[in-house]
């Protein structure tokens, strides 16, 4: 059995993270001592690696919980997990698309500021942002 400190050290996460995973229903200690210290089995290390890897792929803790439920359930198949992964990829691609548009908007703003010596009150970037806000508020957009 491993104490929470040992699990944290071996898995490369903080003790608080382990407590948080427990609160989110992702990880449970195998048992608690009479003094209420948490004790974990080796499987906890695999579970934490799973959580970290899924987070690297963009899954939220709530989504990771669903993945773990799929893993436990008898009715689910590998294809169900694949569909969750595809849906996540679609979500990420949407975000990438939105961020590219934002990046392009910034490029345009940077492009209009061709004189670096202008005083702050004549800054065309701030002016363009101000105009955008006015347009938005007056319903032109």
């Amino acid at each position: 059995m491993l104490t929470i400190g040992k699990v944290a050290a071996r898995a490369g996460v903080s003790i608080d993270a382990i407590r948080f995973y427990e609160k989110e229903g992702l990880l449970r200690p195998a048992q608690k001592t009479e003094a209420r210290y948490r004790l974990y089995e080796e499987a906890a290390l695999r579970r934490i690696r799973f959580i970290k890897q899924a987070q690297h792929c963009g899954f939220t803790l709530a989504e990771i919980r669903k993945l773990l439920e799929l893993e436990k359930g008898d009715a689910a198949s590998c294809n169900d997990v694949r569909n969750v992964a595809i849906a996540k990829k679609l979500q990420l691609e949407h975000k990438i698309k939105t961020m590219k548009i934002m990046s392009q908007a910034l490029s345009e703003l940077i492009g209009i500021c061709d004189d670096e010596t202008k005083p702050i009150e004549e800054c065309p970037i701030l002016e363009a942002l101000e105009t955008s806000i006015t347009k938005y508020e007056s319903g032109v957009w």
Partner: protein
Amino acid sequence: MPDPRGIGNQYYEIRERCVVIQTEVFSTSGCGECAKVRARLKAIAEAMGHDKITWHDINILDEMDYAVALGVMSVSAVAIDGRLAFSSLPSADTLRAELTKRLSA
């Protein structure tokens, strides 16, 4: 003066005028149950007339950019005339009602 776009384009123009609705169904391989549902939906569209409704099955993984452009967020979705119409596979009745509504519009 002959149409500079040529006879081929005229054919497509006539065809476009006849084909009223374009239906695109996004999905992935590997889901037997979804394939059955799709087949039932396709049969409904086909029964309404090949000349009125076209049906394209699209593998979401092959056309990810297009799916994202349409706003598809799940593995099964239906676009009609280039716009996302259903974010998951609709029931047979729902699809029939939607297509009927569009045909009579």
